[in-house]
């Protein structure tokens, strides 16, 4: 009784409580390196029950690595972890779970073959008296769990593979919540959530905090960190460089902490050329899209905005030749395109940074260098032979311009941090030197600093004449980059806004028009 | 009178139409004369209002295939069955058929377990092995090294043919040293490699005995090693590829099982039993194989 009162107090005023009670987690001197490459230098971190700590840092700063260590997935090279004042050592994830540490991973890891309810109970399914799985009980429990994280609309019986990324994300959060954790680690949980879903998720986090759970929240969206966290910790180069309270700091300050310099991207007005680069007339797809008319001029950065499932990905797929349009025509620089495969698109000068890094982006067993080269093998080949010798040089230049953080370009891409993987996929598309660059949620998981860099690069390329079509769910991204934006709603074109008409309000209103 | 190539004549049919199922495999030239014998029996017995339906059990020899085949024939209500049972483990279904009043005639090879079949006509694998063993001893002058290649370890017929020869030689000719056995899984290419390696390790090898499939591969190896006349191969069956090496001299002995006659005679005897209750002359009708030597090939 006494104890739980204390917890509530701690929740109310984290700092005051920290003096009187040992923190839930006290990490000291945590160091970790991979094959001689130091990722964490000497990290000290305290976490108290009932507080939400934001963990910020550039891609590859070591956030996920630190969390793996706290949860038992990785062993530190040096340093100690204490829980409730007593030293602990988690040999495995199972040990961590046992001790009350739940971890929602950055990379989605639902089991597609199982139902939502089964996913939520994986590893601890309930049995009925017959000894068989009690599906009914599980489904009921699942409904409550999903409701709690604001995902009550997901039917527990659905096969998890059929869920959208955002829904899968929510299922994983619900799964972590179901374990009644004492420490809940959320590694970029909001990256594929809609604003509405983010709202539901926030209220869950607040509720959990009130019940005395310690929460670590990793994100690249600074607004979210400022809104949700009691304390924001910034990790840079494997060490903690600052600890601030959101009320006492600013966005710019955090960015400076993370990157060492303020990251600024200013929209640079351009005069678009008169040449028509891409034009769609009455294009329909076999899923949702119908009758899309668009004209994009050379050198233009053209946005595609819409709510989840509005058909942005489908539209980019049609342009890229992943599927054939069921009606309408697509032309590139005046030439009518009739693509039956993305390979033809790449040959015609179209490159795509796809949505879903893990499923559609990376070649997990390949090196960074090979991953970057795959789209441009034919460009740089001599006869049938591939120019392997030139790969390191090309890689080096993109590594530099995109600021890709890694030990060497021969390491497997799956050992890179999520944001850096995304940059490699970006490098792949640019290396193909396309005329038309299609970007589908391209800055998913990319840190603010790098985002600004990527925007700079896209803008620079556009100034040189590259035409860019970018599908994004982030209005700020659209506002920062695009010369014009087309808003899709339920597979139809709701309207096109130019720079002058573009505001958060107009875009969102248009997107909701038919809803 | 008896049909050409056969030794038994059919009796008059007083019973009405008779249907006989002839169950056999088909995967290498050995089966060709068996098939032809069955066809000849059908042609011959048509005059007596009887048919012999050839039923292929496929190209993979196994007891399960035989059992499934007999089950199928029983379902199709044949009056009698000629079958190549080969394996131990076919006795039960043969007994079942006999108990249902469908007589079964075994040919070519049968398992060791006694069954209620009407009769068996074929070569006893152990004595065939011994017959070859005697020939080998003669060719080797009772001394030297003999390489042994068997089809499948554990295949009864192959093992019996092997042991028939090897046990005889061990008992009678202790100066003959046995190299092996090695398994070639009925493959000629494997026999080829085995002979190559045997010659490496035993340059003084003078004879190779192949108990089952692929003896011509061994012969080809002898030829390619330029050992024709120094090393001889003995094996089974007068198939065209074997015969060719008998002519050129790498193959020095081939034992035949008279498969055509087995197929024909068994069908007629079964017919006689069905229409007239005429029992075959014996429960086991041995076929003494004809041992062909290079002289016969010329």
């Amino acid at each position, binding site marked *: 009784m006494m104890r739980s009162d204390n917890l509530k107090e701690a929740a109310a005023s984290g700092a005051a409580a920290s003096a009187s009670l040992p923190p839930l987690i006290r990490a000291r001197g945590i160091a970790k390196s991979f094959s001689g490459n130091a990722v964490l230098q000497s990290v000290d971190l305290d976490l108290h029950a009932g507080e939400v700590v934001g963990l910020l840092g550039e891609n590859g700063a070591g956030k996920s690595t630190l969390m793996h260590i706290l949860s038992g997935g990785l062993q530190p090279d040096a340093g100690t972890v204490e829980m409730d004042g007593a030293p602990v050592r988690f040999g495995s994830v199972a040990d961590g779970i046992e001790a009350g540490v739940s971890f929602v991973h950055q990379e989605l890891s639902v089991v597609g073959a*199982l139902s939502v309810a089964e996913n939520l109970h994986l590893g601890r399914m309930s049995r009925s008296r017959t000894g068989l799985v009690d599906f009914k009980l599980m489904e009921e429990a699942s409904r409550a769990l999903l409701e709690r994280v604001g995902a009550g609309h997901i039917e527990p019986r659905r096969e998890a593979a059929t869920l959208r990324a955002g829904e899968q994300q929510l299922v994983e959060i619900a799964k972590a919540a179901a374990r009644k954790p004492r420490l809940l680690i959320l590694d970029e949980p909001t990256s594929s959530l809609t604003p509405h879903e983010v709202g539901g998720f926030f209220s869950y986090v607040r509720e959990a905090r009130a019940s005395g759970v310690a929460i670590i929240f990793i994100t690249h969206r600074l607004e979210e960190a400022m809104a949700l966290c009691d304390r924001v910790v910034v990790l840079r180069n494997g060490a903690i460089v600052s600890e601030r309270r959101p009320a006492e700091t600013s966005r710019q300050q955090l960015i400076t902490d993370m990157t060492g310099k303020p990251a600024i991207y200013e929209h640079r007005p351009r005069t678009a050329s008169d040449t028509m680069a891409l034009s769609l007339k009455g294009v329909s797809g076999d899923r949702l899209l119908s009758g899309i008319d668009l004209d994009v001029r050379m050198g233009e950065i053209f946005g595609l905005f819409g709510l989840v499932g509005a058909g942005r990905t489908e539209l980019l797929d049609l342009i890229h030749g992943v599927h054939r349009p069921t009606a309408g025509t697509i032309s590139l620089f005046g030439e009518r395109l009739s693509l039956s495969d993305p390979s033809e698109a790449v040959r015609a000068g179209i490159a795509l940074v796809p949505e879903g890094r893990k499923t559609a982006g990376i070649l997990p067993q390949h090196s960074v260098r090979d991953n970057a080269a795959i789209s441009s093998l034919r460009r740089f080949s001599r006869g049938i032979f591939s120019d392997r010798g030139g790969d390191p040089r090309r890689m080096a230049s993109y590594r530099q311009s995109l600021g890709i953080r890694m030990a060497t370009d021969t390491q497997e891409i799956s050992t890179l941090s999520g944001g850096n993987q995304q940059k490699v996929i970006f490098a792949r598309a640019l290396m193909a030197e396309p005329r038309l660059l299609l970007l589908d949620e391209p800055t998913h998981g990319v840190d603010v600093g790098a985002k600004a860099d990527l925007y700079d690069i896209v803008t620079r390329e556009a100034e040189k004449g590259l035409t860019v079509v970018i599908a994004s769910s982030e209005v700020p991204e659209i506002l920062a980059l695009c010369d014009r934006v087309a808003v899709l709603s339920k597979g139809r074109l709701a309207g096109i806004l130019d720079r002058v008409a573009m505001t958060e309000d107009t875009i969102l209103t248009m997107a909701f028009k038919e809803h | 009178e008896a049909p050409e190539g056969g030794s038994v004549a059919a009796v008059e049919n007083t019973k009405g139409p008779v249907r006989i199922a002839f169950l056999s495999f088909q995967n290498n030239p050995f089966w060709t004369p068996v098939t032809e014998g069955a066809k000849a029996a059908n042609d011959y017995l048509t005059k007596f209002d009887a048919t012999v339906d050839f039923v292929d059990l496929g190209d993979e020899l196994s007891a399960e295939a035989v059992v499934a085949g007999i089950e*199928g024939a029983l379902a199709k209500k044949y009056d009698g069955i000629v079958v190549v049972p080969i394996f131990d483990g076919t*006795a039960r279904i043969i007994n079942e058929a006999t108990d249902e009043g469908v007589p079964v005639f075994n040919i070519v090879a049968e398992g060791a377990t006694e069954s209620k079949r009407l009769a068996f006509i074929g070569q006893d694998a152990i004595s065939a092995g011994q017959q070859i063993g005697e020939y080998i001893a003669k060719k080797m002058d009772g001394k030297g090294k003999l390489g042994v290649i068997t089809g499948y370890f554990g295949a009864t017929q192959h093992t019996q043919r092997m042991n028939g020869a090897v046990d005889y030689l061990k008992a009678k000719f202790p100066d003959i040293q046995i190299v092996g056995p090695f398994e070639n899984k009925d493959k000629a290419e494997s026999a080829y490699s085995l002979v190559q390696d045997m010659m490496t390790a035993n340059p003084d090898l003078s004879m190779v005995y192949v108990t089952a499939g692929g003896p011509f591969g061994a012969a080809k190896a002898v030829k390619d090693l330029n050992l024709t006349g120094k090393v001889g191969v003995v094996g089974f069956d007068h198939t065209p590829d074997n015969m060719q090496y008998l002519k050129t001299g790498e193959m020095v002995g081939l034992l035949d099982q008279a498969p055509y006659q087995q197929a024909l005679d068994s069908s007629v005897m079964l017919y006689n039993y069905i229409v007239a209750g005429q029992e075959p002359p014996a429960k086991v009708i041995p076929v003494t194989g004809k041992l062909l030597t290079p002289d016969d090939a010329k």
Partner: protein
Amino acid sequence: MQTGVAYIRSLGRYREASVLAMLAAVALYLSFASDYFLEPRNLLNVGRQASVVAIVALGQALVIIARGIDLSVGSVIGLSAVVAAVLMRDTGSETIGLMAGLLTGLACGLVNGVLYTRFRINPFIATLGTLSIARGIALLMTGGIPVPFGGLAEFVGAGRIFDVPVSFLLMIVLAIVVHVFASRTVMGREIYAIGDNPKASRLAGVNLRAIRLIVFALCGLLAGLGGLILAGNLASADPNLGMGYELDVIAAVILGGTALSGGRGSILGVVIGALLMALLNNAFVLLGISAYWQVVTKGLVIIFAVGLDGLQRRGDDD
């Protein structure tokens, strides 16, 4: 009418539907082409002929769903039968023999499982190794000579209850048990989970090693049982029994709609796959198709059975 069509369409979502359709088509054709096909006796024969492949395939299906593969089942069939027969002969006790046979299967499965989970040997290679070793041991134990085998095993392998083959009944019972196991028990669901996403399952606290081990053990056990049935049917335990069975068994599993890449598959489908193959062999005997055409036909039917499904799913993956 509308709903009927919709219902049939909805069936198409199940991968086993296309094989079931093929099974029905072959059966329909046979019922016209042969007067004997529809006789209960013949249908029951088909059931019996499918039973061993189906029983072993049940275990194999679990292994494949868990993203493994077991090539050793054929040899395990032979070894279990031989061990049972030899012990029965030497001890005179049927119980000891049969138990030993089943335990042998289990032991082989455990060895496979340990090689995979402890020594981290790719299951393809590990079971290829045990394929050879188990067969070698069976040969060594018997000197290559089949051992007579009778009693209860013969009843199970060849006996009938009210004209229904015991092995067919056993197959039905086991199929139901394994189906319930796979779809309704915690471990069953975890098998699907580890096949679909081993890493995520491990992170969720599923004991990967234990489940893999158990799955291989079960597969070995069922192969052992298959060996006893097969040898019982033949009343003889041949060390070469079951040789080459692995391909038939795996084919039945995959025909039944189980993905070789793990995580998906139905136990019902496995039985359908095994029945289709047995039906084909039955058709060959009933229709008297020549051996060479049998081989061709078999290939065509396998391709068609799955091709229907593939065409429907056009543009689905990748």
